[in-house]
Every structure is written in C-alpha cells, then in structure tokens.
C-alpha cells in the first residue's frame, strides 16, 4: 500500500523532529571510546575557540557565531528582555482548568489533555445521521512550484462564541462555531522557505490575563508559536496583536539559538501556560548535523512575553538568555511534541526527542544521554528538571516522543488516587508515571538489550525499559513468514530483504555493513496524535502503527556520493536528502539512509497487514484490552499507489489522534483512507464514517454551540503519509443543527 508508507511520514516527522544534538566542549565522557575528547561545536558557556586541526573536519558547517540567516522573520524582531520568575504575575484561573461543558479550550480540550468531552447529543444510535454543517477553507496549501510539505495537523479550540484555529502557515483565525463564518483572521506572513519538514500548526493556546482587566483588549488572548520561530499573542475578540506582549505582540524565539537557516528550527505545537509561565519547545530538523541548533526549552511570561528561564541540557545551571556571541548549547535533544502543563505540581511535562544526528550517539554528552527520548518534568519556577523518566536509553532509532502526555487519576493501593501521567511512545510502550515523582505506577522492567552494538566506539545501552503493566501497542518481532505481498513474487522479494538485513528484534543496533530493520518504526507505535482518555468509563483509546523501517548507516564518503548534505549547506537542495529519511548527520562519521521496510517497486509494505490499529484499554480494571481492531480501509490505498476502493478494514498507517465523548463515541480520522469515523467506545464497532476532502491527519475535536454538538476535523492531508492535501476544516453535526 503506497500510502502505507505514511509510516514514513511519521518517520519523516520523527526525523524532522528529533535533531540530534550535542554540544561543543562536552567530552562525551563515559561513552567508551568516543572519538573525541575535544569535540568542537562550542557550547553556550564557552568562548569561541579555534578547532584543533585534527578536529577540523568534524565541524565543517557554518560557525555558530555567524549572524542569523536573513529571511527568518523572527530575526527582524528586537531581543526580548529577561525577568525573574518571581516577577511573573499570579495567573488568573484559566478556562482550560475546568472547561465549560460545551467548550474545547486546549489542544487536548483541558489541562489534563484527555481529549474527552462530556457532550452526549451524538450517540452510537444516531451517529449515522451526521452531516456536514460547514467547511472552512484556510487558504494554505502548496502553490504551483512549491514542494508539497503540507500537513496542517490542526485542532481548533472552542471557547465561548469562538472557534479558534491556525492555518498550516500560522495565520490565526476566529470562526463562528455555528455557521463557520470567519469573524477575523490575523495573517502573520510566514514564508514558504520557513517550512521545516512539515507546514503544520497543531493549535493555538487560549490565555486569560490577570493583568489586563476584563473588557480590555488582550484580556483574553490567543498565543501561538510559528514555523519561523516567533511567539505571537493576539486579542481573542479582534485578532489584533497584543501591544504589551513582546514587541508589538511578537517575541523572537531565535534569540540565543545561534546560527541557523529558515526551516531548520520551528514551532508546530501550542505552548502551554503553567502558573503564568508560557513554556516553549521547538522542533529541530532531524538528521542534518551533530551541532544543529539547540533543543533548549524556554519559559516566558504569558502576560508580557518576557523571558523567564531556559533549560539548556548541557548548561543545566545557567537558566539565563545567552548574550553577545554566546548561544544555547548545540545539538541537544529537542522536543517537538505538545507539552502538558500541571499548575498544581508547578511542572511542565516535556516529551523529549533525541540529540542531533539521531542514529549515532558517540558524540553525545552524559547530560544529553540522561534526558533524551524521555519525559522531563521541569519546574516552571526555576527551569530545572524535577524528575526525568527515560523511555529509550541512548536512542539511535529516532524513538523521540511525539505524543503529548495525558494526565489522570489512578486508583492507589490504599484507596487514594495517585496523580498520574500517561506517556505513549513510538515504541508502543505506554508508561504510567506518578507525576509528582516520575516513578512508574505500573511496573517497568529493565530488560537486556539484544546487542551491545556494532559501531566502533558507540556501544548501546545494556538494558532498555519495558512497561510490562500496560498492553504493548505492537506486534511480536518480525519473522520471515510475516513478509507479505500481492503474489509469491513480491513476497519472495521481501523475504530476501528481510534476510539481508541485520535484525535481532527491537533495539537492533545501527550497522554500516548492511541495513538493519527497525521495528517499531519511527512512525510509532504512538505518535503525535497521542491518546484520549474517558475519565468516566476509565477507557483509554490508543491508535498506533505497525510500520517497520529499513535503515543503514553510510560512511561519510558514501553519504557525499548520495548527495546528503545538511539544510544549512549552501548546496542543499530540498528533496535531495534532508529530513525525509536520509540525512547527512554532518559532524559524525556516518550519514543515514532510512526507508520504510517496503517493496520499493510496488510501494507496498513488506510486512503483513494490519499497519494501523486502534485499541481500547480499561484503566480501571487491570489495564486490560477491551477491544482492538485494525484502523483504516484499503479504499484509498493499493499497489503502485492505486486506490483499490475496497472497504476491507486492512488497518492503514495513521497519524492523528482520537476524541472520546460522554455520548460513548470515539471520533477519529488519522488513517490513510481519508475517512473520519465514529466508533462505539464500548464495542469498537464503527457506527459512522464519511470521506474527507483530504487526508484526516489531525486530531478531531467536538463542541456544542446553539444547543447542538459539532465534530470538527482538519482534513489537511499529510505529505509524508501521501494523503491528498486540502485546506478544509470540515465540521459535522446532526440534521437538527444543520437545518438552522
């Protein structure tokens, strides 16, 4: 199934999002035999130094002290000043803490990011009557001559009389939630060349000010991070920039990042506000170079946009903004998932990615190795981690976490409830942690890894963590007999591909001599769609992928021959090797070649279907699987990319998450069959489906307006999932509402 490789999408995403990173003066102590005790690539705290001749080849990219590239919109903004955390005004109660029944206030609806709405007008009995209430065209799609890098991934929020969303290129829009009429639109002028791996805007953040009185502009405001690294705040009533936020409503997030080019770093997820502190993470394009821009996590005052703190992995004690020629340490793990805030604990839960140069770990610092592919709980007062829980040790598989953590209350041993955090991962291991301490609530075992690694000087971790108390969202390790195809001919081809690769199960280490199979692949398991949780029924809904990858490290010579070069190389050509799998990993001895584990002639995955699943887990009674089904039909997929039109629920790769409602329904698109469907939460039966104008690779949401329930999905498509692009938000309702 051609579209199957959507997995690849994920992969791409993952790649795009998990820059490897490292940092200059950091001797990779402890990583036995790392090639260099004096790796160049200056860190924040260090003064510029000349690279020793012996290391000169290692850092051949532009100097991190070079001025920022022109064309980054953010670069035109003046620097923002810093304030102390104690100066951040006390936060007013936010609607996201306890949303009105009819609203969907945050990306995951509420502060717990449950994606649960109590609305119950639409039920399994009447869902088949759903009709399109309205559609809205954002106007954001590739124009002639532009490479398709679109995947809007947008989830609107609904607060009071407004449905608020962003376009794939970050324009902020307020719609009438009943008619879909545009009330205002704030164009923010993001340029095409600022698109990183993907033009995506997952959503905007709704914030109520405690400083600006009610009735004044920007008392209620919308905040977003942009592809070109600006933090923008506009008034919810008018869409006008908030004059008292940053510089005319904008903050330059490139400040302190050092050398970069447009598209290298970007924001695609809505930043949460925790006790008045707006926490910002950003994606750094995967696979480019070891000394990519920093993955620093930063806190800003949600009222003024002023800088409060930074958490810079390789300078953990310096929480200030770099000044002069200094910058945040380069190559550190970045986080591109949507963050989850916790006002009560005063924490932000940061799902982290990998250090830059995902597939080679010998140049990483110990500090990086401790926090990559982990959940890091950062104290929003200090910017220091309070706890860290790692989901993959010394990750060289691009197992960066794309999912957002969901918060819930777990029944404790003594009748009390434990504040818990659910962390889905690409591995399909779902970790349930005590959010006060990061300690697992459900058992986690450290199991021996299958191989010590084969790359000289880059040993693998002897063990890896397994969440044995939760159902694994994966199938068993692949066997030759799992190879598939239309006929014995392509099946034989895949069997040979399987046998030609190194494969010893999950955590097969990277190799140069031949390809290695990576399963779970970098599309997951679970990816950015995350999970939804119904606190009433205790049912957790997870959609996930079975999409192995076929990877191989290549020597620098070979990488050059393949034309792999980092995005900031003057000769870089989009599509000529970048984030879509292959990467130069400049600054390391190797480049990386990544493809889906497929028959490249037919475009069909090599492994047997299903390629995507949806699972309901009963969290209240022993974490049992209530039901589990393939997700997605073969209607829009087939060999050579041809749609088969078959209603067969084969289970396609999927990107995007679910909604669960008080009416006992799950709404989900995600699959590459371009359909949205309603599923009975208790039985798993699909009770309604409709074909979307584009791929439904976004999280849907639901709200009530004028007394009726609506379901909204951005059918923006996804370039990597190879689903059709559209600029349409499609909103469904029952006929009673549509008549009005």
């Amino acid at each position, binding site marked *: 199934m051609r579209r199957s490789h959507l997995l690849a999408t994920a992969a791409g995403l993952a790649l795009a999002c998990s820059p490897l990173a490292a940092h200059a003066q950091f001797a990779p102590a402890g990583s036995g035999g790392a090639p260099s005790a004096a790796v160049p690539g200056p860190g924040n705290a260090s003064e510029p130094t000349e690279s020793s001749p012996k290391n000169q080849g290692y850092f051949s990219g532009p100097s991190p002290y070079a001025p920022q590239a022109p064309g980054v919109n953010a670069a035109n903004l003046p620097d923002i000043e810093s304030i102390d955390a104690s100066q951040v005004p006390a936060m007013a109660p936010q609607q996201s803490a306890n949303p009105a029944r009819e609203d969907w206030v945050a990306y995951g609806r509420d502060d717990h990011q449950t994606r649960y709405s109590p609305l119950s007008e639409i039920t399994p009995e009447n869902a088949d009557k759903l009709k399109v209430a309205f559609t809205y065209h954002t106007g954001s799609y590739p124009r002639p001559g532009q490479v398709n890098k679109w995947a809007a991934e947008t989830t609107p929020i609904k607060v009071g009389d407004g449905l608020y969303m962003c376009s794939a290129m970050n324009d902020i829009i307020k719609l009438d939630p009943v008619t879909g009429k545009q009330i205002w639109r704030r164009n923010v002028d993001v340029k095409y060349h600022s698109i990183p791996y993907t033009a995506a805007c997952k959503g905007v953040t709704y914030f109520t000010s405690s400083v600006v009185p009610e009735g004044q502009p920007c008392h209620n405001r919308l905040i977003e991070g942009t592809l070109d690294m600006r933090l923008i705040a506009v008034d919810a009533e008018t869409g006008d920039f908030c004059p008292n936020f940053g510089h005319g409503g904008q903050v330059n997030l490139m400040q302190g990042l050092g050398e970069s080019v447009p598209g290298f770093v970007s924001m695609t997820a809505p930043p949460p506000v925790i006790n008045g502190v707006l926490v910002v993470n950003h994606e750094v394009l995967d696979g480019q170079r070891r000394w990519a821009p920093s993955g620093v996590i930063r806190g800003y005052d949600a009222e003024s946009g002023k800088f409060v703190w930074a958490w810079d992995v390789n300078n953990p004690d310096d929480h200030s903004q770099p000044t002069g020629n200094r910058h945040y340490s380069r190559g550190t793990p970045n986080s591109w998932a949507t963050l989850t805030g916790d006002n009560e604990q005063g924490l932000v839960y940061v799902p982290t990615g990998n250090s830059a140069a995902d597939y080679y770990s010998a140049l990483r610092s110990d500090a990086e190795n401790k926090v990559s592919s982990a959940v890091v709980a950062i104290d929003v007062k200090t910017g220091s981690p309070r706890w860290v829980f790692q989901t993959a040790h010394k990750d060289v598989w691009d197992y960066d976490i794309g999912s957002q953590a969901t918060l819930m209350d777990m029944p404790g041993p003594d009748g009390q409830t434990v504040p818990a955090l659910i962390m889905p991962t690409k591995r399909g291991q779902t970790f349930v942690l005590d959010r006060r301490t990061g300690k697992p609530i459900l058992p986690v075992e450290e199991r021996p890894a299958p191989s010590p690694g084969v790359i000289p000087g880059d040993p693998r971790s002897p063990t890896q963590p397994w969440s044995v108390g939760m159902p694994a969202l994966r199938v068993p390790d692949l066997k*030759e*007999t799992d*190879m*598939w*195809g*239309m*006929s*014995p*001919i*392509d*099946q*034989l*081809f895949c*069997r*040979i591909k*399987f*046998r*030609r690769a190194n494969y010893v199960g999950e955590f097969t280490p990277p190799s140069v001599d031949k390809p290695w199979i990576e399963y779970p692949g970098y599309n997951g398991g679970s990816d950015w769609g995350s999970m939804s949780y119904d606190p009433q029924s205790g049912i957790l809904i997870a959609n996930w992928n079975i999409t192995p990858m076929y990877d191989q490290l290549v020597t620098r010579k070979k990488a050059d021959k393949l034309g792999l070069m980092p995005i900031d190389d003057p000769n870089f050509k989009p599509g000529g090797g970048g984030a879509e799998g292959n990467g130069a990993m400049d600054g390391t001895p190797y480049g990386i070649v990544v493809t889906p584990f497929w028959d490249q002639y037919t475009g069909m995955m090599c492994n*047997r*279907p299903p390629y995507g699943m949806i699972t309901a887990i009963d969290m209240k009674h022993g974490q049992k699987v209530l039901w589990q089904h393939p997700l997605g039909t073969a209607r829009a997929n087939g060999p050579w990319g041809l749609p088969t039109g078959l209603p067969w629920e084969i289970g396609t790769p999927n990107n995007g998450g679910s909604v669960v409602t008080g009416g006992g329904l799950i709404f989900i698109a995600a699959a590459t069959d371009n359909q949205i469907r309603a599923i009975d939460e208790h039985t798993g039966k699909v009770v309604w489906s409709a074909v979307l104008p584009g791929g439904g690779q976004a999280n849907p949401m639901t709200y009530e307006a004028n007394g009726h329930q609506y379901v909204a999905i951005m059918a923006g498509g996804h370039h990597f999932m190879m689903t059709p692009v559209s600029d349409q938000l499609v909103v469904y309702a029952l006929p009673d509402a549509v008549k009005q």
Partner: protein
Amino acid sequence: MPNIQGNRTLTEWLTLLLGVVILLVGLFFVIAGGDLAMLGGSTYYVLCGIVLVASGVFMLMGRTLGAFLYLAALAYTWVWSLWEVGFSPVDLLPRAFGPTILGILVALTIPVLRRMESRRTLRGAV
C-alpha cells in the same frame, strides 16, 4: 483437422504464452529463491522454482506433462502455505491466491495441450 498443417490456434498461442510466464516465474524462483535459501530463509521457492521451470519448458514443448507439473507445484504450494501460516486468509493471499488463479488457467490448457500432443503423435505416425 486444420491444425495438422502446424498452424497454431489462438488457444494454443495463449497456452504457449502461459508456458512462458510459468518459465519466467520459475526462473525467478530458482534464482531469488536460491538466494533466499543461501541467506538461511525458506527453501520452498527454489524447490518450487525447479518444478515450475520444468513445467514451463514442457508446456512450451506442447506436452501435457507441463500442466500436470504446474498442478503438482500448486499442490505443494498449498501444503506449504497451510503449514507455514494455517488457514489465515490474509497470509494465504500472497502465497496461494496468484498461483491458484494461474492454476485454473493451466487446467484450461490441458485439452489444448492434449490436442497439440495428439497432433504431434499423428504427425509422428505419418
């Protein structure tokens, strides 16, 4: 008996074409299947491939034996498929579906091959 003169009918041409297809599939099975067996994988393909090559050659010679060899390979395919994956339709699809369709076509060629054979016999008798 217009064919006595050696003019081929359409069905005979189609039979020969089928023989070519089977021969090519057989050769692919022998070469790629040999590769797979050397890599430690299944030996089904190389073994089946040998039978298919023989089947294709005999069909091209206009011998009914070619069709029966194919049907034998098909039987082997089904036994092997069921041994490998059981009665799982999804997994039987790549293994047995195509070969069975081909098998139906091959069965249809048996009368044609018989005719070709008897013609040859007649010619031989002259």
